[in-house]
């Protein structure tokens, strides 16, 4: 089969990244489980750059550390069990990890908006949708009760909820799952944040609703000029909305690329396997699982962490030493010692 030439589109955001500070920069982030014993690192030295107005997908299986990373950025980790042990998180040039809790409260909402996976448990069942929206609006803006309510109705309309004047007085249990996720999005964008973090925003939803919600996030990111991080275990979601992707495995990034590069020319065997695991309607290709399970925190292998499940792994190269993240081009990295000799399958090859 002949290779289809793929035009590699470099997002303009990457080209201009050096001119102004990026929206968000994470350097050397280490997150650990703390408790009675010595801290156990679960995210080990993570670097991540979110360019302005870019949609970045943070991809990984459960336990890869993607959710902890997104929570750490908003400083929402439960400090008693999980803590940031090292690293910096810089939002438009300002270090978030050194801010006081009071300063951080005004960052959340106004500068960073969050959407969580499960809209049912993230909305308070005892209050109307309108109350939940207006209380956020009035905390951050100097608004009268009526003005806040008007804004709440407007926001519900913006996220595609029909008949917002009626919906604003309803309780979360009175609306469907897709609509709850829209309310969550309305809450997240209510204070016009510059950065939006969506943690598995569509995992709890049906396929048709998932398509609607992703479309909505993409549109809002564009019209409100937000820079967005979406965490997901599903590369299908990435294909749909993301400009760039970072693939996480066992607490570290194993590959970073633009969405097109990642799908057509993956540079890490784990990415290749994730692509092969996707079901596709009307495509005659077997869905292949990845044998085994990811290592647990505290049991990360010494060398390449994916080696025990990798069909390309060889001894001693893959297991003897820590594998560094190789910088291939601006915004393009991979963590695989055998990369130069491997030809990995993308979705069109």
């Amino acid at each position, binding site marked *: 089969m002949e290779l289809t030439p*793929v035009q590699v589109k470099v997002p303009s955001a990457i080209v201009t990244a050096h001119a102004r500070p990026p929206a968000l920069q994470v350097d050397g982030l280490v997150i650990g489980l703390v408790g009675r014993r010595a801290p156990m690192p679960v995210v080990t030295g993570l670097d991540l750059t979110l360019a302005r107005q870019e949609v970045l997908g943070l991809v990984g299986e459960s336990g890869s550390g993607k959710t902890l990373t997104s929570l750490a950025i908003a400083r929402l980790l439960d400090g008693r069990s999980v803590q940031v042990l090292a690293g910096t998180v810089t939002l438009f040039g300002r270090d978030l990890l050194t801010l006081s809790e009071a300063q951080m409260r005004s960052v959340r909402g106004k500068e960073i908006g969050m959407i969580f996976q499960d809209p049912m448990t993230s909305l308070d069942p005892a209050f109307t949708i309108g109350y939940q929206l207006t209380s956020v609006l009035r905390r951050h803006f100097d608004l009268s009760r009526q003005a806040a309510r008007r804004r709440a109705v407007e926001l519900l309309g913006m996220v595609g909820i029909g008949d917002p004047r009626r919906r604003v007085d309803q309780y979360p249990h009175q609306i469907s799952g897709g609509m709850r996720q829209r309310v969550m999005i309305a809450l997240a964008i209510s204070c016009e944040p510059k950065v939006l973090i969506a943690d598995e925003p569509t995992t709890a939803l049906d396929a048709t609703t998932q398509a609607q919600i992703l479309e909505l996030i993409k549109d809002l990111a564009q019209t409100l000029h937000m820079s967005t991080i979406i965490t997901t275990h599903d590369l299908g*979601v990435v294909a749909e909305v993301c400009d760039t992707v970072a693939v996480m495995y066992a607490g570290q990034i194993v590959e970073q690329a633009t969405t097109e590069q990642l799908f057509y020319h993956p540079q890490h065997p784990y990415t290749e396997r994730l692509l092969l695991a996707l079901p596709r309607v009307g495509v005659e290709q077997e869905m292949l699982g990845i044998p085994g399970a990811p290592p647990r925190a505290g049991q990360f292998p010494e060398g390449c962490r994916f080696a025990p499940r990798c069909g390309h792994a060889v001894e001693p190269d893959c297991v003897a030493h820590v594998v560094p993240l190789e910088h291939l081009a601006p915004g393009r990295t991979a963590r695989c010692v055998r990369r130069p000799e491997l030809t990995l399958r993308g979705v069109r090859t």
Partner: protein
Amino acid sequence: MTETMPLLTVRNLNKTFPVRRSALGRATEVVHAVNDVSLEIEPGSTLGIVGESGSGKSTLGRVCLRMIEADDGEIRFADANLRQLSAAQLRSTRAHMTTIFQDPYSALDPRWTVGQIIEEPLRINGSHSRAERRTIVADILPRVGLSADAVHRIPRSFSGGQRQRIVIARALVTRPRLVFCDEPVSSLDVSTRAQVLGLLRELQSEFQLAYLFVSHDLGVVERMSDRIAVMYLGSIVEIGAAETVAQRYRHPYTAALVSASPAADPVAQRARHRIVLNGDPPSPIDIPKGCPFHPRCALAIARCATDKPELVMTPNGHGVACHVTNADRTLTGTTLFDSMVERRLSFAAERTTS
């Protein structure tokens, strides 16, 4: 083609749930969860049922296995008339029809060992001695990809994918002929999902299992099924061979489902038109008159709002309930898709100019 007797035959099945009662205890509002459904499953084959939440697909499965009672209709399993069986007869029949549940976290008792969990159906059945039960459990573990020492461990020490293997082992110890798989992989990661689906297919050919496979993910259903039924608000709107339904579909709702499933190819994904459906599915309490899909359908004509379309079967077993596409048989697959997109676009253009 040789005629085989279906393992499961369902005719004109209905199920409603009362949601509000008057002071006299009479149901004033009902959810019509399953609406005049007929289907068949051949031994050793898979019927996939796909639909959104609230489409009644899980309820249909439960009614078919008599986990909940139907209002009316007929269910035949092998040669038994399932709805006529006594409680005792039903219990022994149940050994041949089991269930794999969606959420492997809530389906397993956290205090029991894996051995106790897997042998429970045999214990209830009362058909095997303790020693026999132990041998059966030891036999099934490697077949679902669990190690022998799993017997003494508790569910907490297993990952989601491994827990689903425990659920599968429990569903298979009684040597069933029919397994109802209720969204068996939707709570699992993509990588684990493919593993578990592969396992289900291996076990199907090894034990000659028939699957009633329910999921909201058309990609997954297409991989697993010989035939697919598409459900919308309690009714089957399209049914046929898996390949036909996924590629030469003739119902507008199926076209929308196909366009909603990710193509896993970013360029193709962004280039193609999508039929993003307007609004949420209507509530099953208040099912629209006529065709249940007409308020969201780009091709709806006046008749769709008044007459409910019949499921019209072609000789090769492809059935569609749609006034428009049954009148114009050229509307199939991409042709149907394109005409829906075109209609939507001209509709949107009209709106902006008026």
